[in-house]
């Protein structure tokens, strides 16, 4: 990646982050009526509501509120929870690692399952041979892609935690508790990546450099792993990176099923209980995560792909 492209990408990231902050700030103001009254309920005494409004700064002019909000976020001050009085920043700091570890592990597992599977299917079905394999592969992955992660989660809990008792059904305590949530989160993306990996591998197998490598009579393992695999990775990783963002969102549902102490569980709680400062902070963090992942994918791809320098020049 040329430096100019990298800089341009960083500027775009910064702008998006700014927009995201304004949007999350606006969220509370978009709530029809008085958010504090909505949160505390009609029975709450007027003094309490007024005190809360003042504490949130809702009685001051909008520009001033925005400024306070932005400086707060930049210094790590996301406000305090309506319900528990905890600083939202602390809630996020304690839960973010749990969410991230789940998403990263699931991405890794998805790639580890999917890339070899897709390559294997491609090699077996090259030039239209083994139509049976092709049909089976596309039917299986097409089905697996379509099942949402929370159904995988429920099915895994029912079978492996409740019926067989192999894994704990919920909570986070040690490596065993990771198995089911990570699986639930990675199966769908794995099916997706496997399809892409197959298509990319087929595309590469048809190229001249593979013919030349075959003319060199390289062993199959070397041909596929050293020659073909690196050339399919760019496309596969792009999709893998973008899937990571959907994994972050899918994680909310999986965390809910497994009572996983991450941000996802928190956001569901906070929305249900109208704990607006928490919801606002967590949504901001989720949005920022999506932006960071996209930025990282772009930068990594730029560095990985030796030909992108030419394209940009």
């Amino acid at each position: 990646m040329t430096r100019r492209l990298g800089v341009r990408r960083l500027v775009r990231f910064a702008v998006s982050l700014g927009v995201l902050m304004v949007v999350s700030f606006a969220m509370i103001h978009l709530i029809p009526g008085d958010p504090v009254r909505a949160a505390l309920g009609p029975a709450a005494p007027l003094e309490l509501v007024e005190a809360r409004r003042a504490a949130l700064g809702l009685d001051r002019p909008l520009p001033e509120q925005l400024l306070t909000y932005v400086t707060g976020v930049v210094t790590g001050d996301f406000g305090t929870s309506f319900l528990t009085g905890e600083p939202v920043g602390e809630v996020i700091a304690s839960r973010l690692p749990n969410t991230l570890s789940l998403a990263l592990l699931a991405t890794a597992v998805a790639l580890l399952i999917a890339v070899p599977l897709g390559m294997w299917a491609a090699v077996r079905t090259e030039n239209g041979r083994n139509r049976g394999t092709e049909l089976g592969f596309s039917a299986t992955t097409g089905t697996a892609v379509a099942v949402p992660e929370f159904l995988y989660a429920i099915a895994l809990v029912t079978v492996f935690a409740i019926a067989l008792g192999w894994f704990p059904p919920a909570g986070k305590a040690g490596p065993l508790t990771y198995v089911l949530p990570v699986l639930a989160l990675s199966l769908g993306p794995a099916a997706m990546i496997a399809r892409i990996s197959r298509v990319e591998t087929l595309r590469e197998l048809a190229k001249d450099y593979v013919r030349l490598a075959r003319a060199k009579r390289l062993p199959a393992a070397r041909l596929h792993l050293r020659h073909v695999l690196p050339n399919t990775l760019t496309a596969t990783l792009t999709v893998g990176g973008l899937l990571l963002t959907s994994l972050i969102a899918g994680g909310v549902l999986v965390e809910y099923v497994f009572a996983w102490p991450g941000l996802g569980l928190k956001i569901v709680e906070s929305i249900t209980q109208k704990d607006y400062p928490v919801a606002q902070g967590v949504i901001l963090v989720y949005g920022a995560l999506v932006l960071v992942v996209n930025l990282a994918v772009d930068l990594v791809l730029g560095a990985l792909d030796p030909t992108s320098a030419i394209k940009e020049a």
Partner: protein
Amino acid sequence: MTGWSRRNAPGVAGAVIVAAMAVLAVVGPPIWGDEAVRIDAAAILQGASPGHPLGTDNLGRDLLARVLVAGRYSLLLALAATAIGAVAGIVLGTLPSVLPRRAARLATGTVNALVAFPGLLLAMFTAVVTGLGARGAVLGIGAAIAPGFARLTQTLAATVANADYVSAARMLGVPRRRILTRHVLPNIAEPLILNLTQALGGALLGLAGMSFLGLGVQPPDFDWGRLLFDGFPRIYVTPEVALGPAAAVALAGIGFNLLGDALARAAARTSVVRERTPAPPVADGAGEPDPGAVLEVRDLTVTFPGGVTPVRQLSLTVAPGEIVGLVGESGSGKSLTAAAIGGLVPYPGTVTYAALRLGGRDVATLSDKELGTALAMVFQDPLAALNPALKVGGQLAEVAIVHEGADRAEARRRAVDRLGHVHLPEPERRARQHPHELSGGMRQRAVIAMGLMGTPRLIVADEPTTALDVTVQRQILRLLREVVEETGAATLFISHDIAVVGELCDRVVVMYAGRVVEELPAGRLADGAAHPYTKALIASLPDLDTDRSTPLAGIAGTQPAPGQIGLGCAFAPRCPLATARCESERPELVAHGPGQRVACWEVK
């Protein structure tokens, strides 16, 4: 037909599931509606029983009936979200074409930024703003669908507006509205419908997710997600209560996805004609090896399914240090001949031969190690032939590592040495570079050097200079000559350019429609060519400086496709000397003077 229906089985399954859901949405509520809301205090929170196959909920209502009834609401919400998303997206997508440039760029940028955001996040945002309930979830999921549609609309509008037929219609004065209805809409309808199918499936799953989290549909309404929300805490005791809604959501997701996939494939499909595969022709009579030949090919035939035979009973020999040119127009089978000799004919092609010997031994009996070091291949486009992801040096070195067990350092040294040998400047540095950092000529040198990593006995060069510019062509030809003299390898040089072949080669083999029609010493090309096709090739040669890319501009007609060759001489339709006999009987390749063989009735 069986192949067709088998490949469409998933699509048919998807269509059936989606159709069943639509039927359920219509007939479900009238049939089971009462049962779904009938409260039975005597049957609260029961598991499966004959009366209630999926159990009952906390008010004793039958869960099976509730699942069957909830289909309508689930589908309607998904339709609403999709409609919102599609309309908003199409408006957003057409904005850039009507707004001033700056605003248009802003709109495009917004769409691009939004596309990256997962739908669930947007839905949660709206859930905060609007409060819990179906309205917020539908708005949120709709908002999540919109960016995808916007981008699709942008792309489609841009491609269609610039398409030739639209500009042509505009120039002919066709009214705007007619252009839109007759030209633009039909061409973008297909991808839009496809996207609608997928968006509808996505919306259904997204809404189910929101309801499952308790953020979507609220009681007393219920959709599948809400039923799952109610059933989920009970799976420890009675898992079957979650089964109904879970299966319904899964089936819906699968149905829409399979249908969408099948539609996408149907849209992309180019008609493929499939025919029965005939048994490959049997060839026998290998005979004794020719002691004077490195490469000996006898009766080589390449067949593809459907009776297509691009190479027919081709025979040729190449002696050590000899360069034989294989000439013909594209489609004459010359490149497939090269592929067959290298063992690289792609599936489903079949190769048969009476003899295919390298150094007197049948290639089928040679090990990979022997073939990998004895055979060097050079292709037309060196950029395509080198792996873009690997360094040049490594691609050379692996031949020595794989076939000769050389260690890394030794293999590298040899690679650099070979690169220097083919006059690549700064071989050390070049070895550490990727192919895209080299010029075209340097790349082709690198490919030739790769062939020199072993001890090549046969070099097969398939149009090795066609992709290069003229000055580089000469250098590469000189290098080939040099390499052949030095290694004594037999060389098969494949080209459509008879002038280049005449310059470089010792002997020339002319192919037409899969067969050899003439074989002669290169020195006799100018005055000794006997076959009418060879003569035409030479006659059509302009002066050296003019374009030679269409060698047969002088002869009317085209070479017949491999499937359309008749009984007689394949050249007959274009041949000035053709007689009735030429149409019905094929001339054999027979000796004609020293070192020359011709297949033509009229050459005496």
